[in-house]
């Protein structure tokens, strides 16, 4: 027990900092992937064949690639080999790479989540929108998407949960987040590794479970009454 207190005296203050990094990655990548996901979903439901093809190709390519590869292509290839940088500050640069990789990867899942929401909208809604003279974009913006997004809350929530957990993969871009700190702490004190692991695991539960509860609450509350 005494060994634990000294360990947490040394590293305790770093744990919230590391988790804060995961939260920052989650929030920024959630915004990025949601925006890109909506655009892709619009592409995939549009009447224009070439846009549909672009959307479909993006989703299928990205969804089937491991996030670790995307992260490494960003850090080792785009930064290391092509020498493309986003910021002069080393840490900030890698952070931006991690956010971009996470956004690009999860956008494919956001797109599919929104598209499954579109499937919950009854045909009559679109027919009514057309009957009052709305074109594709106005119908999508005013009638279809507001209902589709409400119907898509559960799959979007699942994507957010996956995103939260996947922020640990930012370790591949040497971002100092929770899994890196856990590794350091276990290497420093392998005798209490179970306690260290449980600390971090519970930390993730504390982030992930509220998102799940919030999703269920929101999808019940915002469900379109039909």
């Amino acid at each position: 027990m005494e060994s634990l207190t000294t360990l947490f005296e040394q590293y305790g203050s770093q744990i919230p900092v590391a988790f804060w990094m995961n939260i920052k990655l989650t929030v920024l990548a959630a915004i990025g992937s949601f925006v890109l996901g909506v655009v892709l979903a619009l592409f995939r439901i549009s009447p224009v064949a070439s846009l549909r093809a672009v959307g479909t190709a993006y989703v299928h390519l990205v969804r089937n690639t491991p996030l670790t590869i995307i992260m490494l292509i960003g850090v080792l290839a785009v930064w290391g080999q092509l020498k493309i940088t986003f910021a002069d500050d080393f840490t900030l640069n890698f952070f931006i790479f991690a956010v971009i990789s996470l956004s690009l990867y999860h956008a494919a899942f956001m797109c599919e989540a929104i598209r499954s929401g579109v499937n919950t909208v009854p045909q009559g809604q679109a027919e009514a929108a057309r009957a009052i003279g709305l074109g594709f974009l106005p119908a999508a913006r005013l009638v279809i998407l507001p209902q589709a997004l409400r119907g898509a809350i559960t799959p979007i929530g699942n994507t957010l949960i996956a995103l939260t957990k996947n922020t640990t993969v930012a370790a591949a871009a040497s971002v100092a987040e929770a899994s890196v700190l856990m590794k350091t702490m276990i290497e420093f004190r392998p005798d209490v590794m179970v306690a260290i692991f449980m600390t971090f695991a519970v930390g993730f539960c504390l982030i992930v479970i509220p998102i799940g509860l919030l999703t269920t609450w929101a999808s019940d509350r915002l469900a379109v009454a039909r």
Partner: protein
Amino acid sequence: MSARSVLFDAPGPKARRNVLIVNVVALIGVAIVAWIVLGMLNERGQLEPSRWISAVNGNAWSNYYLPGLQFTLQSAAIAVVTSVLFGLVFGFLRLAPYAPIRAVSGVVVEFFRAVPVLLMMVFFYQVFAMLGRAGVIPSADGPYFAVIVGLTLYNGAVIAELVRSGVKSLPKGQREAAAAIGMTPNQSLRLVEVPQALVAMLPSLLSQFVVILKDSALGYLIGFYELLQYARQLGSGQGNILQTLVVAAVVFIVINVLLTWLATLLSTKLSSKTAGRTKPRAGSSAVKV
């Protein structure tokens, strides 16, 4: 009803013209993006044939990609078997007639679903490193075991949830019929409900294999020598890491597309063999690394 038919009518002459215009604009847009990317790659000398040839020649395949792919597939295959076992056991326990068993197994399943796979792999890497130092296992195999255990716990928990929801989604007439011919709840679960739920969840299970295969690439971060690790090693040796990573990504994409295709095929074939639904739910568990 497909999403497409909801949103627009069969286009008339005016709409056809608009669609054509947008088509052309979109194609030009794609061409411009491709031009910029290729130009940038060319400027930095990334399109030189030598860089690509050394990423796909015989040496690259026989000494790097194929040995790497072997470990990727091997760890994924073992993890598939173990996580199905884990999933079946905990799926059964979550349906058990005793509330305490249901509660405990529920906590276990939810815990492993909430903890990132990478966190588990890093932890078990250290556990197996310790066992390796103690001489219990060959220490070089530590990362390999850690990948398998990490994948098993997470995906096993997901599969347990699939089993449970598969049984719950069966029409209740199945259970009633079993009760009517005198089966106990346990028999009904074992002989009637779970077998049908299993058939119904086979396509979802195949989609889960895609997740397992993709997640095995996380082993890269704990020093497991799988496809990605070999690709990086080859690329950093020859200075063409972009090219070798692209090849590794293509290998993953091809295998995963085949698995997904098989899952779709299976779900149409199996729908007549069970009372449950065989179509993987949209946006379900396939959202992993």
